[in-house]
């Protein structure tokens, strides 16, 4: 997920500091702060933020009035109203003005991040969300862990492989994903590449022996480490869902067909000097999601 820039409008510096603190370690970055209505309009034009958090009570004009001004300048501005009072009439007035979401003070950090995420995601093509939030971090982690585990520099590529079945010849590690969304991933390589990779992971010299089974175990463990890292990063990034990984399973043979039915899937390839290490990750499609 790319960095999402947030402008905070609040007459209380303490509120500003608290909200900023909540967004630390997330992909939301506070790009500016305005303490009153006039400054809010000015800072909006300077920073062009992705999202604005708007306090209701500002010294010069109220939050709804300020939002109207900003929305006149940019009808696509995404505004989250944060106020001490969250009554229905305020919400109706706010919605009529074009405010997208409302939160009440004191703001719960998780709710805050969820609301920002929703506000941001609603505007994006769902495919882009999946790619930005789920796949791009995975490509980076794949590359990093590959290097950490084996010293291999991978040239990374990824593509969407919707409904395209594929074959595995060699060894594949299958790891189920549960939570929201659920899914599965398979990391696979030819046996020659898998064995070479295992030798690097285990740091074996040319004289040292390695059985096929030991090589597969090392490959499985590497896949497990990679996925563990990925999922914890994902859970950190997308605070609204907790995804877990099942223990790894393994397939081995020639031309094993893997079906992608009902999955929104991506293929990631790491091209290395010992051959390609490939990964297919698929997320379950639900009725109204990922379509």
């Amino acid at each position, binding site marked *: 997920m790319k960095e999402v820039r947030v402008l905070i409008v609040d007459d209380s510096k303490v509120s500003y500091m608290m909200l900023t603190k909540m967004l630390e370690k997330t992909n939301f970055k506070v790009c500016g702060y305005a303490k009153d209505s006039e400054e809010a309009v000015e800072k909006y034009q300077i920073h062009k933020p992705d999202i604005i958090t708007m306090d209701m009570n500002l010294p010069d004009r109220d939050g709804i009035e300020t939002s109207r001004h900003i929305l006149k300048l940019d009808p696509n501005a995404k505004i989250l109203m944060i106020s001490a009072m969250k009554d229905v009439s305020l919400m109706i007035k706010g919605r009529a003005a074009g405010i997208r979401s409302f939160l009440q003070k004191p703001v719960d950090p998780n709710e805050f991040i969820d609301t920002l995420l929703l506000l941001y995601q609603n505007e994006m093509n769902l495919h882009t969300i999946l790619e930005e939030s789920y796949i791009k971090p995975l490509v980076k982690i794949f590359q990093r862990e590959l290097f950490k585990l084996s010293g291999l520099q991978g040239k990374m590529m990824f593509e969407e492989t919707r409904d395209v079945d594929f074959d595995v010849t060699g060894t594949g590690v299958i790891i189920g994903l*549960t*939570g929201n969304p*659920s899914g599965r991933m398979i990391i696979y390589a030819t046996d020659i590449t898998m064995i070479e990779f295992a030798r690097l992971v285990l740091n074996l010299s040319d004289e040292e022996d390695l059985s096929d089974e030991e090589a597969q175990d090392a490959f499985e463990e590497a896949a497990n480490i990679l996925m563990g890292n990925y999922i914890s990063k994902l859970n950190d990034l997308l605070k609204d869902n907790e995804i*877990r990984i099942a*223990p790894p*399973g393994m397939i*081995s043979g020639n031309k*094993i*067909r893997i079906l992608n039915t009902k999955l929104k899937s991506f293929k990631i390839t790491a091209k290395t000097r010992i051959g390609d290490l490939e990964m297919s990750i698929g997320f379950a499609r639900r009725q109204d999601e990922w379509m």
Partner: protein
Amino acid sequence: MDVKFVNPFINAITTVLPQLGFLTITRGKLSTREKAMPSLGVTVLVGFTKSVRGNVAYNMTTEAACKIASTMMMGMPVATFDEMAQSAISELSNMVTANAATNLASMDFEVDISTPSLTLGDNFSVKISDIQYLVIEMDIDGNLIEINMDLH
């Protein structure tokens, strides 16, 4: 491997399958296995997380998979394990696993299940555990489904 996880799966099969049009469902032998199993042709892998972790692999021949798919589609002839049949088997494993998960929950084991991975091939092996695990054979109107389970 704990034998107490066997019944939730047997119950799931004997509950779900009659609703899909299968008539005679009997439990075959229960055995253990170590290391990799040969795929019979169609193997569906499902991962478990939360209070019970592990994998379950439903293993069957392509022929059995076609016959099972045919029954699920009201007797429509299924000559090859095509997309429709694949979807039926995928759905079947989903339903059985979800039902088993409910049974586990009633035993106070909260579980979450992954999307099933459907794998096909003439000659491949599947490994779900490094240690001993259980294999339950189920006879579904004369078709064998082997449930390999490694749950902890």
